[in-house]
Protein backbone atom coordinates (compact mmCIF):
# COMPACT_ATOMS: atom_id res chain seq x y z
CA UNK A 1 0.00 0.00 0.00
CA UNK A 2 1.26 3.43 -0.93
CA UNK A 3 2.24 5.64 1.98
CA UNK A 4 4.21 8.61 0.73
CA UNK A 5 5.89 11.36 2.74
CA UNK A 6 6.86 14.85 1.63
CA UNK A 7 10.45 15.88 2.41
CA UNK A 8 11.38 19.55 2.62
CA UNK A 9 14.99 20.71 2.92
CA UNK A 10 14.58 24.18 4.41
CA UNK A 11 18.20 25.22 5.03
CA UNK A 12 18.90 27.47 8.03
CA UNK A 13 15.61 29.01 9.17
CA UNK A 14 14.68 31.04 12.25
CA UNK A 15 13.02 29.09 15.07
CA UNK A 16 9.77 30.90 15.74
CA UNK A 17 8.28 31.19 12.22
CA UNK A 18 9.18 27.54 11.56
CA UNK A 19 7.57 26.47 14.83
CA UNK A 20 4.41 28.43 14.00
CA UNK A 21 4.37 26.91 10.51
CA UNK A 22 4.39 23.38 11.91
CA UNK A 23 1.70 24.27 14.45
CA UNK A 24 -0.39 25.64 11.62
CA UNK A 25 0.27 22.59 9.41
CA UNK A 26 -0.83 20.28 12.24
CA UNK A 27 -3.87 22.41 13.08
CA UNK A 28 -5.08 22.51 9.49
CA UNK A 29 -4.29 19.03 8.21
CA UNK A 30 -7.10 16.56 7.49
CA UNK A 31 -7.44 12.78 7.04
CA UNK A 32 -5.96 12.94 3.52
CA UNK A 33 -3.02 15.25 4.22
CA UNK A 34 0.29 13.62 3.30
CA UNK A 35 2.79 13.39 6.19
CA UNK A 36 5.86 15.65 6.01
CA UNK A 37 9.42 15.66 7.31
CA UNK A 38 11.23 19.00 7.42
CA UNK A 39 15.04 18.96 7.50
CA UNK A 40 16.71 22.16 8.61
CA UNK A 41 19.09 24.06 10.87
CA UNK A 42 18.24 26.88 13.25
CA UNK A 43 20.27 29.93 14.25
CA UNK A 44 21.32 29.83 17.94
CA UNK A 45 18.30 29.46 20.24
CA UNK A 46 17.33 27.79 23.51
CA UNK A 47 13.87 26.24 23.53
CA UNK A 48 12.14 25.45 26.77
CA UNK A 49 9.60 22.56 26.81
CA UNK A 50 6.28 22.66 28.64
CA UNK A 51 7.64 20.75 31.62
CA UNK A 52 10.73 22.91 31.53
CA UNK A 53 12.00 24.49 34.71
CA UNK A 54 13.50 27.96 34.46
CA UNK A 55 16.40 26.96 36.74
CA UNK A 56 17.73 24.60 34.05
CA UNK A 57 18.61 27.68 32.00
CA UNK A 58 21.78 28.58 33.82
CA UNK A 59 23.08 31.52 31.80
CA UNK A 60 21.41 32.10 28.45
CA UNK A 61 23.55 35.16 27.77
CA UNK A 62 22.98 36.58 24.30
CA UNK A 63 21.08 33.52 23.03
CA UNK A 64 17.28 33.91 23.04
CA UNK A 65 15.08 31.52 25.05
CA UNK A 66 11.77 30.52 23.45
CA UNK A 67 9.00 28.85 25.47
CA UNK A 68 7.49 26.13 23.27
CA UNK A 69 4.68 23.55 23.23
CA UNK A 70 6.65 20.29 23.15
CA UNK A 71 7.33 17.83 25.94
CA UNK A 72 10.63 17.76 27.73
CA UNK A 73 13.03 20.27 29.17
CA UNK A 74 15.28 22.95 27.74
CA UNK A 75 17.50 22.28 24.75
CA UNK A 76 19.74 24.19 22.39
CA UNK A 77 19.65 24.52 18.61
CA UNK A 78 22.33 26.13 16.48
CA UNK A 79 24.08 25.99 13.12
CA UNK A 80 25.73 22.62 12.45
CA UNK A 81 22.94 20.74 14.19
CA UNK A 82 20.55 18.86 11.91
CA UNK A 83 16.92 19.23 12.94
CA UNK A 84 14.12 17.03 11.58
CA UNK A 85 10.52 17.93 12.25
CA UNK A 86 8.34 14.84 11.97
CA UNK A 87 4.78 15.72 10.99
CA UNK A 88 3.04 12.35 11.00
CA UNK A 89 -0.59 11.37 11.45
CA UNK A 90 0.18 8.78 14.12
CA UNK A 91 -3.43 7.68 14.53
CA UNK A 92 -3.87 7.09 10.79
CA UNK A 93 -0.64 5.06 10.70
CA UNK A 94 -2.06 2.82 13.42
CA UNK A 95 1.06 3.47 15.51
CA UNK A 96 1.42 4.46 19.10
CA UNK A 97 3.48 7.44 20.12
CA UNK A 98 6.03 5.09 21.70
CA UNK A 99 6.37 3.33 18.29
CA UNK A 100 7.04 6.67 16.64
CA UNK A 101 9.67 7.60 19.23
CA UNK A 102 11.38 4.19 18.83
CA UNK A 103 11.32 4.47 15.04
CA UNK A 104 12.93 7.90 15.18
CA UNK A 105 15.57 6.65 17.65
CA UNK A 106 16.28 3.60 15.48
CA UNK A 107 16.65 5.84 12.41
CA UNK A 108 19.34 7.78 14.24
CA UNK A 109 21.08 4.66 15.55
CA UNK A 110 21.18 3.21 12.02
CA UNK A 111 22.44 6.46 10.56
CA UNK A 112 25.22 6.55 13.17
CA UNK A 113 26.18 2.93 12.38
CA UNK A 114 26.88 4.13 8.84
CA UNK A 115 29.49 6.47 10.35
CA UNK A 116 30.94 3.60 12.48
CA UNK A 117 29.47 5.03 15.67
CA UNK A 118 28.07 2.61 18.23
CA UNK A 119 25.00 4.58 19.33
CA UNK A 120 22.00 3.46 21.35
CA UNK A 121 18.67 4.61 22.70
CA UNK A 122 17.79 4.38 26.40
CA UNK A 123 14.49 2.99 27.63
CA UNK A 124 14.10 5.64 30.32
CA UNK A 125 15.36 8.82 28.61
CA UNK A 126 14.47 9.80 25.04
CA UNK A 127 17.35 10.58 22.73
CA UNK A 128 20.33 8.77 21.27
CA UNK A 129 23.59 8.31 23.12
CA UNK A 130 27.20 7.38 22.44
CA UNK A 131 29.12 6.11 25.47
CA UNK A 132 26.71 7.91 27.85
CA UNK A 133 27.01 11.21 25.97
CA UNK A 134 24.00 12.54 24.15
CA UNK A 135 24.34 12.99 20.39
CA UNK A 136 20.67 13.50 19.47
CA UNK A 137 17.67 14.86 21.33
CA UNK A 138 14.00 14.05 20.80
CA UNK A 139 10.96 16.10 21.67
CA UNK A 140 7.51 15.51 20.25
CA UNK A 141 4.07 16.92 20.69
CA UNK A 142 0.90 15.11 19.63
CA UNK A 143 -2.11 17.17 18.69
CA UNK A 144 -5.26 15.80 17.05
CA UNK A 145 -3.50 12.43 16.68
CA UNK A 146 -0.62 14.00 14.75
CA UNK A 147 2.98 14.59 15.74
CA UNK A 148 5.05 17.73 15.45
CA UNK A 149 8.48 18.86 16.68
CA UNK A 150 11.01 16.04 16.27
CA UNK A 151 14.72 15.43 16.62
CA UNK A 152 17.98 17.35 16.71
CA UNK A 153 21.23 15.61 15.77
CA UNK A 154 24.51 17.28 16.68
CA UNK A 155 26.65 17.08 13.54
CA UNK A 156 29.40 19.70 13.41
CA UNK A 157 28.60 22.59 15.72
CA UNK A 158 29.71 24.66 18.67
CA UNK A 159 28.60 22.60 21.70
CA UNK A 160 29.56 25.29 24.22
CA UNK A 161 26.01 26.74 24.55
CA UNK A 162 24.83 23.38 25.97
CA UNK A 163 26.97 24.23 29.00
CA UNK A 164 24.74 27.21 29.67
CA UNK A 165 21.79 24.88 30.37
CA UNK A 166 21.07 21.53 31.99
CA UNK A 167 20.16 19.81 28.71
CA UNK A 168 16.84 18.01 29.05
CA UNK A 169 16.90 18.82 32.76
CA UNK A 170 19.95 16.70 33.58
CA UNK A 171 22.71 18.57 35.32
CA UNK A 172 26.05 17.64 33.86
CA UNK A 173 24.61 15.79 30.86
CA UNK A 174 27.48 15.56 28.39
CA UNK A 175 26.77 16.27 24.77
CA UNK A 176 28.72 14.97 21.79
CA UNK A 177 28.49 15.33 18.04
CA UNK A 178 29.14 13.42 14.84
CA UNK A 179 32.36 15.29 14.03
CA UNK A 180 33.91 14.51 17.43
CA UNK A 181 32.96 10.83 17.23
CA UNK A 182 34.25 10.31 13.68
CA UNK A 183 37.21 12.73 14.01
CA UNK A 184 36.34 13.89 10.51
CA UNK A 185 34.87 16.91 8.83
CA UNK A 186 31.23 16.09 8.14
CA UNK A 187 29.00 17.68 5.52
CA UNK A 188 25.59 18.41 6.98
CA UNK A 189 23.95 18.00 3.57
CA UNK A 190 25.28 14.43 3.35
CA UNK A 191 24.01 13.59 6.84
CA UNK A 192 20.69 15.13 5.91
CA UNK A 193 20.27 12.72 2.99
CA UNK A 194 21.20 9.73 5.20
CA UNK A 195 18.73 10.87 7.85
CA UNK A 196 16.00 11.28 5.25
CA UNK A 197 16.54 7.72 4.00
CA UNK A 198 16.67 6.29 7.51
CA UNK A 199 13.47 8.06 8.61
CA UNK A 200 11.61 7.04 5.44
CA UNK A 201 12.46 3.39 5.98
CA UNK A 202 12.05 3.22 9.79
CA UNK A 203 8.76 5.15 9.73
CA UNK A 204 7.64 2.68 7.02
CA UNK A 205 6.89 5.16 4.28
CA UNK A 206 6.65 3.60 0.84
CA UNK A 207 8.19 6.54 -1.01
CA UNK A 208 9.18 10.16 -0.57
CA UNK A 209 8.55 13.30 -2.56
CA UNK A 210 11.04 16.14 -2.22
CA UNK A 211 9.51 19.58 -2.39
CA UNK A 212 11.80 22.52 -2.85
CA UNK A 213 9.35 25.33 -2.21
CA UNK A 214 9.51 26.81 1.28
CA UNK A 215 6.91 26.60 3.99
CA UNK A 216 4.25 29.16 4.70
CA UNK A 217 5.49 31.23 7.57
CA UNK A 218 3.29 32.87 10.15
CA UNK A 219 5.16 35.54 12.03
Amino acid at each position, binding site marked *: *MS*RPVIIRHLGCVPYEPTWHAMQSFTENRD*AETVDEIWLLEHPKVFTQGQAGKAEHVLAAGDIPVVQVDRGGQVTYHGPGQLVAYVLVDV*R*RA*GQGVRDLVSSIENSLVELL*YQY*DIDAYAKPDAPGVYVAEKKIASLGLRIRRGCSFHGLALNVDMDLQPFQRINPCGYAGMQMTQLRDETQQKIELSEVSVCLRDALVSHL*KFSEFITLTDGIECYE
Partner: protein
Amino acid sequence: MTHSTEQQPPKIEFPCENYSLRIIGDSCDNFVDVVLEVLKRHAPEVDPETVVCRDSSKGRFVSAQVSITAKSVEHLEQINQDLRETGLVRMVL
Protein backbone atom coordinates in the same frame (compact mmCIF):
# COMPACT_ATOMS: atom_id res chain seq x y z
CA MET B 1 -16.98 3.16 19.65
CA THR B 2 -15.90 2.75 16.04
CA HIS B 3 -15.80 5.56 13.53
CA SER B 4 -16.64 4.43 10.03
CA THR B 5 -14.73 7.33 8.53
CA GLU B 6 -11.52 6.41 10.30
CA GLN B 7 -8.79 5.23 7.97
CA GLN B 8 -7.36 1.78 8.45
CA PRO B 9 -3.63 1.60 9.07
CA PRO B 10 -1.62 0.25 6.13
CA LYS B 11 -1.51 -3.54 6.30
CA ILE B 12 0.79 -6.03 4.64
CA GLU B 13 -1.02 -8.80 2.84
CA PHE B 14 0.44 -12.21 3.63
CA PRO B 15 2.00 -14.16 2.11
CA CYS B 16 4.11 -11.29 0.82
CA GLU B 17 6.68 -12.21 -1.84
CA ASN B 18 9.87 -10.20 -2.20
CA TYR B 19 9.54 -8.82 1.31
CA SER B 20 12.75 -6.92 1.79
CA LEU B 21 14.65 -7.38 5.06
CA ARG B 22 17.52 -5.15 6.09
CA ILE B 23 19.75 -6.74 8.70
CA ILE B 24 22.34 -4.58 10.42
CA GLY B 25 25.04 -5.94 12.68
CA ASP B 26 28.67 -6.17 13.71
CA SER B 27 31.00 -6.69 10.80
CA CYS B 28 32.80 -10.03 10.80
CA ASP B 29 33.97 -12.54 8.21
CA ASN B 30 30.96 -14.81 8.53
CA PHE B 31 28.16 -12.26 9.04
CA VAL B 32 26.38 -13.18 5.81
CA ASP B 33 26.78 -16.93 6.45
CA VAL B 34 25.29 -16.61 9.94
CA VAL B 35 22.39 -14.52 8.63
CA LEU B 36 21.71 -16.90 5.76
CA GLU B 37 21.81 -19.91 8.06
CA VAL B 38 19.00 -18.36 10.17
CA LEU B 39 17.01 -17.21 7.15
CA LYS B 40 17.17 -20.63 5.49
CA ARG B 41 15.53 -22.18 8.55
CA HIS B 42 12.53 -19.86 8.18
CA ALA B 43 12.56 -19.03 4.49
CA PRO B 44 14.16 -21.85 2.47
CA GLU B 45 13.50 -19.94 -0.77
CA VAL B 46 16.09 -17.29 0.10
CA ASP B 47 18.67 -16.91 -2.66
CA PRO B 48 22.21 -16.22 -1.37
CA GLU B 49 23.03 -14.57 -4.72
CA THR B 50 20.55 -11.76 -4.03
CA VAL B 51 22.04 -10.62 -0.71
CA VAL B 52 23.34 -7.07 -1.01
CA CYS B 53 25.86 -6.03 1.65
CA ARG B 54 27.04 -2.57 2.59
CA ASP B 55 29.82 -1.79 5.02
CA SER B 56 29.85 1.27 7.26
CA SER B 57 32.49 3.91 6.52
CA LYS B 58 35.33 2.13 8.36
CA GLY B 59 33.82 -1.33 8.20
CA ARG B 60 32.78 -1.67 11.83
CA PHE B 61 29.17 -2.46 10.95
CA VAL B 62 27.52 -4.18 8.02
CA SER B 63 24.06 -3.99 6.52
CA ALA B 64 22.65 -6.88 4.47
CA GLN B 65 19.56 -6.56 2.33
CA VAL B 66 17.72 -9.69 1.30
CA SER B 67 14.26 -10.64 0.02
CA ILE B 68 12.11 -13.40 1.48
CA THR B 69 8.50 -14.50 1.26
CA ALA B 70 6.91 -13.24 4.48
CA LYS B 71 4.15 -15.58 5.67
CA SER B 72 2.79 -13.68 8.66
CA VAL B 73 3.65 -11.17 11.34
CA GLU B 74 4.61 -14.09 13.62
CA HIS B 75 6.91 -15.44 10.90
CA LEU B 76 8.72 -12.09 10.70
CA GLU B 77 8.93 -11.83 14.49
CA GLN B 78 10.46 -15.30 14.74
CA ILE B 79 13.07 -14.41 12.11
CA ASN B 80 13.84 -11.19 13.96
CA GLN B 81 14.23 -13.03 17.27
CA ASP B 82 16.46 -15.76 15.85
CA LEU B 83 18.64 -13.22 14.03
CA ARG B 84 19.12 -11.27 17.25
CA GLU B 85 19.98 -14.44 19.14
CA THR B 86 23.04 -14.87 16.94
CA GLY B 87 24.55 -12.00 18.94
CA LEU B 88 25.81 -10.42 15.71
CA VAL B 89 22.61 -8.70 14.60
CA ARG B 90 21.67 -5.34 16.08
CA MET B 91 18.71 -4.27 14.01
CA VAL B 92 16.26 -5.89 11.61
CA LEU B 93 14.07 -3.79 9.35
